[in-house]
């Protein structure tokens, strides 16, 4: 049966992890949320991915969300207290309060060539930078950095298995493009501490 019993037993136990992705229209924030959710599911968790529903104009700041839990996720509200924040475009830091609501024990992962110490951001959470655009340029010849960023996220949080991420990337893009994206993801996975 669709386990109504487990629903009845659902008790908030702080396991659920919430992620907010900040990007610009056209950078693939929604695709990234979708691939991360799928990889989380492949890694054996319940997962939910959704965009901040809007008219996604090219270049405009947008958000997408991911949740992971060990049980069915029925929360339909947006993410206000993320455990992790991913910033695809560091120019957004001046425009949007990207660390809003971020848990002090959490982490913000920023796509930037700068060192984390050089990033001016008001948060108690850990700040991690990865030059995902550079990794993407080298592997894909284009600055599409989502797969590299997802590799950084997988390593830094342990919430997604690298193999699951690779499988989802291959399924999403297929063929040569898929392999190149897997390489970008794996390089980011390697370089992140």
């Amino acid at each position: 049966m669709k386990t109504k019993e487990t629903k009845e037993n659902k008790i908030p136990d702080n396991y659920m992890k919430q992620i907010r992705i900040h990007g610009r229209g056209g950078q693939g924030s929604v695709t990234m949320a979708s691939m991360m959710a799928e990889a989380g599911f492949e890694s054996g968790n319940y997962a939910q991915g959704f965009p901040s529903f809007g008219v996604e104009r090219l270049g405009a700041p947008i958000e997408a969300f991911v949740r992971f839990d060990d049980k069915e996720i029925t929360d339909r509200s947006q993410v206000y207290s993320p455990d992790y924040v991913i910033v695809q475009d560091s120019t957004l830091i001046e425009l949007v309060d990207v660390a809003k609501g971020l848990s002090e024990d959490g982490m913000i992962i920023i796509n930037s060539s700068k060192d984390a110490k050089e990033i001016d951001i008001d948060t108690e959470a850990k700040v991690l930078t990865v030059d995902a655009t550079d990794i993407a340029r080298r592997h894909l010849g284009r600055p599409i950095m989502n797969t590299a960023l997802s590799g950084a996220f997988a390593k830094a949080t342990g919430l997604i298995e690298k193999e699951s991420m690779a499988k989802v990337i291959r399924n999403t893009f297929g063929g040569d493009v898929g392999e190149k994206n897997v390489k970008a993801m794996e390089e980011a996975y390697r370089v992140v501490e």
Partner: protein
Amino acid sequence: MAKMMTGYDAVAEAVKACDPDVIPAYPITPQTDIVERISEMVADGELTSEYVRVDSEFNAASTALGASAAGARTFTATCSQGLKLMSEPLFSASGMRLPLVLAIANRSLSAPLSIWGDHTDTFAERDGGMIQFYAEDVQEAMDNIAMAYRVAEDEEISLPALSCLDGFILTHVQEKVEPFSRKEIREFLPERSPVHTLDPSDPKTMGAYARPEHWTETRYEVHQAQLKAKDKIAEAVEEFANIFDREYGLGYNGLLETYRAEDADVLLVALGSVCGTMKYIVDEYRQRGEKIGIVRPRVYRPFPTEELCEVLEDAEAIAVVEKDISLGYQGGLAIDIKSALYSNGSRIPILNFIVGLAGRDVKKDNIKNIVEQTKELRGKLPEDIEFGKEERWEPLRTELLEDDKK
């Protein structure tokens, strides 16, 4: 096998499994992805339906109506202003006793223009004789398509059915779903076998002119078919559970589901996806020993009067939480629930909360506020709530209101 799917993908997969003959389609956000996905299925040869690109929603519903009259299984999808354009042929379809199945990606109505979701569009179709299902999650949105076909096409029912899912919140979320295939659904959903069809070799007229001495009886029969649909829904959910191992309110004839409602003092009643968020708040209260529960009607028309009365009768206070307002009175669901309870002798105070209009996020804090306000009414009577104070907006940004600016 379970996999991650968006709501629009899951609905399209359900349609593919149910294998309609004719699919007229016209795009509107956030439904477009459903018919777009279906058009790919047709182009790829996965689906052999006649896919008709029409010039408006009026034409989409009219084409579905005509095809249904010829005996075809049909599908289309829409929402918001698109459903307004379909309204006229849909009212005709129920009067003509023609089964049509529509997926509705619930969205607000203009003005102001908004692409985001609420239940204003389908509530405005309440009196048209269409059966209305509301899904809480993507799985249910998928499963309701199959149930809608089975009930709508039953020869004793033969009515249009709207399978509603919250626009964006459910259409664009990606989550775990167990899809069903055409082969698997065949056992649950037989081929359509219409009693009367338009056939040139046996000419007949459908939906013709009726004089006052006949018209009332056709309306009466649509009403009887709606009421009869309750039994058919009960049979459908039971058989669905047997075949697919997924239950939808079996204890309440498939018409409503409950969450920790059995011994609750305070019950929240709502349709659709917002009930999922409410579960977390209910669990928090339950951990503190406070008896809060949820009642979620899955079907709005036919209205589950008996089931609601049964499940609500022992509560001390009720909050009807809805994404709709019948302007000039109260929320449509609250009006119906009060009518059902109070005409059955109940004296439970009921508050009506208007939430989530045009996609305003329903936050957990909003739900806590609703529970707190409703808790205060325990031990009181309906008349203890002042006239005009039954209906509350959670939240209302008073700083935006005209009076406040003066």
